[in-house]
């Protein structure tokens, strides 16, 4: 169990360290170190889980099972690669004079804070604590969104803060209802422990749980970015520093979805109608389609990709909503590949924006000619996210399609429509940016693209074959969520 505590402890230390650190430290490198250590700890944890199954900490405060273990590793991994990216990125921003040393320290300590919140959401066994951590994640990132102090960034941060705050409050109400329902069947203080709840989900009062789930869905759904609760997301992504957008898209949304799914498991256990699933399917499909259309109207490159995040989250929500083993497996896979791909894309996007000195897509031109690595990176990332094989996104989308075909055939045309439109929306914007002659006086920037290469390589690998242990976790998690293993 030690590694689990380590995973939580290291970022905590990180926060304090960066908050109190003196002038002289090279914050970027240190941040990388912290995340690296964290990654090692998570891998250790993963190995433990691999050896002796589900772990439950002493006070049953922490729960690591096959559903969240790979998410934890993923979080640590993306956190690390993004920190590598942000070291160079932030240095560049500082040279441009957009940031002061003090802000930088704030940034890094908040980065750690965010990581802490993420780990806590994933590891905790207590639904209440999960809520607290989720709210904590908002609080940690709000200041990062407004890091540049431009009017737009302030506005974005304010919207993010208010909307997510109000939304998450609903989730708290849901949690209270859950606790209330749990309190009906005794075991007082431990009543909010997920493991306990899951064991005796049968006895929980279905009506209350359904109401609770609605609140949870609205609350955490706001963070997932489900339409029409999504409005904060593009603003926050586009105005904050790019590494932030990478972790927001790559991790925060996943974890919010994770929370919803945990609750869905309880509701499904308690009530026997498909209500929760149908709600998720509805929200998912709506977000998927609406986001697909939004893609066509973007002018800001980061907004573009944040909408594509909404689209993909919608697809995952939809898939979880279907609830058949195949769909669930697909959704789990999609969570992984999407966060890998999307964070990689945001890394390239960040460099591209620095290259052109602007985030507006009319300014970004001729990337391949100017700096081939960035151009190809962006192009490949887009190819991957658009769901072209042999990248992993294709695999998951393929499975989702077939699962839909199996359960709700009449929904597949909508899904296909969405995919097609989203694809067109992405490419009509990306092509002019990467191709063509380079604009006058565009010069290369110092860019470290190893994160991109590694991420895309992983996605490629997952597309070609899913390694045994991961497949194992996926199918165990599927059994946990959907009741039976895929096929």
């Amino acid at each position, binding site marked *: 169990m030690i590694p689990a505590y380590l995973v939580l402890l290291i970022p905590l230390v990180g926060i304090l360290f960066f908050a109190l650190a003196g002038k002289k430290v090279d914050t970027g490198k240190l941040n990388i170190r912290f995340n690296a250590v964290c990654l090692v700890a998570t891998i250790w944890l993963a190995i433990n889980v691999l050896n002796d199954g589900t772990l439950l900490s002493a006070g049953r405060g922490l729960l690591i099972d096959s559903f969240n273990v790979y998410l934890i590793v993923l979080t640590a991994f993306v956190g690390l690669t993004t920190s590598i990216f942000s070291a160079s990125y932030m240095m560049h921003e500082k040279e441009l004079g957009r940031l002061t040393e003090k802000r930088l320290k704030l940034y890094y300590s908040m980065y750690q804070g965010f990581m802490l919140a993420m780990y806590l959401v994933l590891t905790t066994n207590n639904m209440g604590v999960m809520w607290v951590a989720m709210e904590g994640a908002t609080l940690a990132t709000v200041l990062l969104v407004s890091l540049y102090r431009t009017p737009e960034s302030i506005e974005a941060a304010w919207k993010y803060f*208010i909307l997510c705050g109000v939304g998450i409050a609903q989730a708290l109400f849901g949690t209270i209802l859950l606790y209330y329902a749990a309190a009906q069947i005794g075991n007082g203080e431990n009543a909010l422990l997920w493991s306990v709840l899951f064991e005796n989900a049968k006895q929980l009062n279905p009506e209350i749980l359904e109401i609770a789930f609605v609140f949870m869905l609205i609350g955490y759904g706001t963070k997932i970015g489900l339409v029409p609760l999504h409005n904060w997301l593009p603003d926050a992504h586009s105005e904050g520093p790019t590494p932030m957008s990478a972790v927001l898209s790559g991790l925060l949304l996943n974890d919010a979805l994770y929370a919803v799914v945990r609750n869905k498991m309880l509701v499904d256990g308690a009530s026997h109608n498909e209500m929760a699933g149908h709600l998720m399917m509805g929200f998912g499909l709506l977000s998927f389609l609406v986001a697909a259309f939004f893609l*066509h109207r973007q002018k800001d490159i980061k907004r573009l990709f944040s909408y594509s995040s909404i689209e993909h989250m919608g697809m995952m929500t939809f898939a979880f909503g279907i609830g058949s083993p195949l769909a669930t497996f697909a959704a789990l896979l999609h969570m992984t590949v999407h966060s890998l791909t999307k964070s990689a894309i945001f890394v390239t996007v960040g460099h591209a924006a620095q290259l052109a000195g602007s985030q507006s897509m009319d300014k970004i031109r001729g990337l391949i000619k100017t700096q081939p690595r960035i151009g190809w990176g962006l192009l490949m990332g887009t190819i991957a996210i658009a769901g072209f094989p042999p990248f992993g996104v294709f695999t998951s989308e393929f499975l989702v399609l077939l699962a839909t075909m199996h359960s709700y055939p009449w929904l597949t045309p909508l899904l296909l429509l969405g995919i097609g439109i989203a694809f067109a929306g992405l490419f009509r914007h990306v*092509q002019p940016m990467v191709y063509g002659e380079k604009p006058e006086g565009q010069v290369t920037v110092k860019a470290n693209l190893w994160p991109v290469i590694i991420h895309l390589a992983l996605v490629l690998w997952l597309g070609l074959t899913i390694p045994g242990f991961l497949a194992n976790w996926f199918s165990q998690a599927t059994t946990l969520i959907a009741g039976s293993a895929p096929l």
Partner: protein
Amino acid sequence: MTLILAYGAVLLSFASGLFALITNRWQTLLAVSHRRIKKYFKIDNACWSWITKNLDEQQFFATLQQAVFILLGLSGMFAVLAGVSVLIDKTVLTDQIGLGLPWLPWHVRFDSLSGFFYLIIGIAVTAVSLYGPGYVRAYDEHKHPFAALGLFTGLFVSGMLLVLLADDAFFFMIAWELMSVASYFLVAIQHENPANRRAAFLYLLMAEVGALSIILAFGVLASSAGGFTFDALRDATLSDTRASIAFILALLGFGMKAGLVPLHVWLPEAHPAAPSHISALMSGVMLKVALYGLVRFCYDLIGTVQWQWGVVLVIIGTVSALGGILYAMMQTHLKRLLAYSSVENIGIIFMVLGLSMIFMGNGHPQLAALGFLAALFHAFNHALFKNLLFLCAGIIHHQTHELNIDMLGGLIKKMPQTSLIFLVGCMSISSLPLFNGFVSEWLAFQTALQVDVLNNGVLRSLIPVSAAALALTAALAAACFIKVFGLIFLGLPRSHNSQKAHEIADKGMLAGTTLLAGLCFLFGILPGIIINLLNGVAKQMLGETLPNDTAFNWLWLAPVSADKASYSPPLVLVGVLIAALLSFWYLRRSPETKTMRRAEAWDCGFGGLTPKMQYTGSAFAMPFQRIFARVWLLDEQIHKDVGGAMNLNVTAIHYQLQVQDHSWPTVYQPIVYAVNTAAKQVGRIQTGNIRTYLGYSFVTLLLMLWVIS
């Protein structure tokens, strides 16, 4: 063994791609190899000199390119060998690769059908790899790095080969999309030109849509089957409606790739954009892979073919054939023209396939086999001569930097070999006897003429009409390619570029094209070879062979029975030779008339012939344009410069003609418009006012609560 060859082909093409990627770092490679070789080859002098020759700065890069194409060529040969061997020992090989989903490894199946298409791809790739080095040398390394070109070429070829190997839906889709994406990059390789970017985007978009509908088609089968493996799909029992839905989806998907009207619009855009050897592969081979997909899907996976599908195919095929050739007729850009003519040939192929489906559905498997065979044979031929023509187009562009046929002319004296090869291509594409194009078209007619056996009066009258349409298509094709050859090679040079053109120096480029031309002629004279192979394919797919397959010796071609119809190309060849030689000998016997006197062209006694006086492409096509005016969207503008007293005497006349495809305004622009407006409407919901947003979540909450209670 065969399977190893097949894998070898894939791996080699893949390897060539990777190797091309390495060439990006050729300077470092150079340095490394210098060190290595200095270490090892101290002794052998001849070898040393050879190596040093290849290792100096200029030569080295070319050598690397050579190596890339050699790998590609090896993969082509492997493919040919694999295909032939599986076709000869009519077996079905299956295998599994440990990739893919945990519960679904990649299934591999290599049977005669795959083998036949392997053969097609192999030949094409071999020719291209002979042709390639000379062609890419002209590219400016800084503008278009060879690494990208070579990499994606390798991926493209391996993708196509994998499609043929795939035996489960997942693997099939991966290979299919790999093929599409790789070719997309190849289309976009010269991306400075906005038109190319647009073409690439259009191509990728349509490829994506097609792929989605193919997935959907598989889904329809899979939803009533156990899994995604083709075996499971074969065993699936479908209701007729489900089967028809699957067929329509598959037709949409594969037709999108094959370029059936009206799904063909990407084709004339993408082919000119790509480098010539790539467009040769795309047009000559990739479209055939789409055909393979449809055949595999209908005859193999669905299993029971319904004759209504055949009718659909016949109609669409006829429309595509006529439309394609008519559009080709009006083009002035050589590669666009060739692209449209691909649409025409694909149309013919699908039409004949439709005939075979009709016969199949009406319970005449043998005649179905005849149609099937004709279709595949025409696919084979088209692969040969379209490849040839595109490669020649590449040579012409390479030598004259000009592809507008109104700007060329008189090349036959500048580039004799090329012109001869091109002529062979033209003759076989306009299906003249003694060339392969004619044989497949002859078989097609034979199929159509067997309509008597059908009971359904509608079919009995539909098929002959479509046959007549086929005849019209053939005649138009002949006219079209007379125009092409006549304008490019005959007459007087119409521009400075064609004036100072000269024969291509690079042996490889000639070798590649000559190979194809030779095959065109060979299979025109001895079609029996291919048809025997195809018989095996028909046996495996339809379970039936030709009615009268004993008649397929090298000499005679009598598909149904000797007294119904027979054709003997070798004897015809002999006859022609006899007649020609006789007349030749007889007329040149007397010494004084043997020699010809050269003089200025008579030209009905007008004189002062200038190149400007020659017929241009649009002039040649003028009568057709008048007759079939409704087929195109014509924008014809005649503008006169008048001068002199009272502007009476015309000093100059400007004529300009723009030909546009009907499918744009009718099919595509509405879709684009709809998407944009929809996006605009959807954009409305994001007002930027936080209170509205709060309102959204508030209302959503109330709504949800109300819903569940």
